[in-house]
């Protein structure tokens, strides 16, 4: 087995191991809290998303769209050795830029949604750029800068939306709806998955996955980013522009999270920016997605779909008087155990050795 393949194998196996342990733990928690309902409850987690057939599956893709992108954002920065915990902030400024264009940009005609999506990318990139610049030029810790930018972004957006007559719906304490032309076209997905909220945003997310995969694996720029992630000093010694790479990496990561916000709030599914002082949960879910997907674009795509799938199943749990937080508990356990890649590796190596007769 060549090395890259071997590594992917170990990664996949350790993720599957973590998922099995997480689900098992979830089942035990259900069993301990309400033994009679545990079996149907657990079954619902696994099958709930299929209850309404194609509509249900369409919903899974719809939920997965933003978290695949925030996951991609975190994962991409991870590859450069940066922990982008700033996704909640980047996400909400992206959403904000999108709804501004979506509400005020009616002169754009049929290009309105495209411009709105581009605006979300630009806003997110700007929000990611700041921690990147602060780290590259002033040595400010990226994690702390990102946390600060999360709160600044959240309060700033609430402040602007609430203060603007053209954006704010004071009756509902949320942003106004975007124009019809700003909603992302369904691109035929509504025919495949009738009645669900899925839209062309899913294709855009897939496109982003492919693009990031290409950048990381097929370009010199991607190679430099990964090199910096492996060993920052060595990459600097090899003549790579460390500062530029940090800044670009954070800006791209921010752009992805901003795009996630744009796509969700332009989905035409009744999502509005609510004026509450809570950080966007889609941003934090992105961290889980990136960790479960082992930071690889393809892994993140699968991890995003998986988390969307059990989250969708979790909604139906309320039928059995369990609260949906069990899903978060399961995901937390999965992530915890996915950190144990090392045991899986040792296990596989031992197994390989045995099979090869200790050669």
């Amino acid at each position, binding site marked *: 087995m060549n090395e890259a393949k071997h590594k992917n194998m170990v990664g996949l196996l350790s993720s599957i191991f973590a998922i099995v342990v997480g689900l098992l733990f979830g089942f035990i928690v259900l069993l301990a809290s309400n033994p009679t309902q545990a079996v149907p409850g657990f079954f619902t987690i696994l099958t709930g998303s299929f209850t309404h057939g194609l509509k249900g599956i369409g919903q899974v893709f719809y939920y997965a769209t933003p978290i695949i992108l925030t996951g991609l954002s975190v994962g991409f920065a991870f590859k450069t050795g940066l922990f982008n915990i700033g996704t909640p902030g980047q996400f909400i400024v992206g959403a904000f830029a999108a709804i501004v264009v979506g509400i005020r940009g009616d002169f754009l005609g049929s290009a309105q949604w495209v411009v709105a999506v581009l605006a979300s990318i630009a806003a997110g990139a700007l929000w990611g750029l700041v921690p990147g610049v602060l780290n590259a030029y002033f040595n400010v810790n990226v994690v702390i800068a990102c946390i600060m930018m999360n709160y600044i972004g959240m309060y700033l957006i609430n402040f602007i939306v609430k203060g603007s007559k053209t954006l704010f719906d004071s009756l509902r304490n949320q942003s106004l709806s975007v124009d019809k032309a700003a909603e992302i076209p369904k691109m035929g997905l509504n025919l495949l998955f009738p009645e669900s909220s899925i839209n062309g945003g899913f294709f855009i997310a897939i496109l982003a996955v492919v693009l990031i995969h290409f950048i990381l694996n097929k370009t010199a720029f991607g190679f430099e980013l990964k090199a910096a992630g492996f060993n920052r000093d060595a990459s600097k010694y090899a003549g790579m522009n460390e500062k530029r790479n940090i800044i670009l990496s954070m800006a791209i990561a921010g752009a992805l999270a901003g795009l996630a916000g744009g796509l969700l709030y332009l989905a035409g599914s009744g999502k509005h920016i609510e004026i509450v002082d809570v950080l966007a949960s889609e941003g934090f879910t992105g961290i889980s997605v990136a960790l479960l997907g082992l930071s690889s674009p393809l892994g993140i795509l699968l991890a995003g779909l998986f988390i969307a799938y059990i989250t969708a199943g979790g909604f139906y749990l309320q039928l059995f008087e369990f609260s949906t937080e069990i899903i978060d508990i399961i995901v937390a356990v999965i992530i915890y155990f996915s*950190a144990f890649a090392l045991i899986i590796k040792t296990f596989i190596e031992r197994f390989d050795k045995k099979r090869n007769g200790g050669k």
Partner: protein
Amino acid sequence: MNVVFSVFQQTMFFTMPLLIVALGGMFSERSGIINIALEGIMIMGGFISILFINLTQGVLSGQLQLLIAVVIAGVAGMLFSLLHAFASINMKADQTISGTALNLFAPAFAVFFARILQGVQQIQFNNTFRIESVPVLGNIPIIGDLFFKNTYITTYIGILILVLSTIVLYKTRFGLRLRACGEHPQAADSVGINVYKMQYAGVLISGAFAGIGGLVFVVPTSTNFNASVAGYGFLALAVLIFGQWNPMRILFASFFFGLLKTVAASYSGIPVLAALGVPSYIYKMIPYITTLVVLVFTSKNSQAPRAEGIPYDKGAR
């Protein structure tokens, strides 16, 4: 003058949890383990101890109940942090991964079990802990008003923790060894220090402090616990870096943050600020913007423990 006193008293409510939790984080990071799970551990400590207060209402009350709750919060936080210690020390896992897992787990766990135990996710409690005025000390002019009126016993616990932490870190053999593990674990190991043991101690201390911090945050500012500590665990992380992993600087950093938070929360009651007519959101943003600006000026010579975040491997020398 009364405004100054009340602002100061309130600043203490916001400062103490940050101080205690950041000091906890300091022990962990000084031993070489990044503990990004402070938020989750705070929630766990807050949840278990507030639940205790809720369940013993009517039987216990006042300072005795609060003191027992502090111990319970510390033990709960310590036990929860064992998970992080095990993953990052024994399993050599990526420390951000297990930290993130704990942060995700704690609020979900708190909501899930609060619902099972009592139907709703908020846990109510009767606040019988406020001290109107400490006997004798409260009558001292100015100082009495600042430190010994409208206060909680948790404030003094926080100060005690600060003093003890400083002594332990700088004046004891344990502190020296702990710091050595965070700077150069291989060197520490070569002179016979058990690195794994020291790192366990660092993480467990951080767990205990973060658990206590969760309770200390909730008690003065609310009458129920809703599975959240409003991002204070993350702020404590910022305070820790702002404070350059040094106890006295952490005190200043948390006081600074606490003061700005208080201003944001109660500026309308402060005549000078109310007259300015600045929107509340500006005050809410100021602590975060200021932190960024200060970090720009102070981060060039970062005092971060050199080996933090790198799993210690005996074989790699």
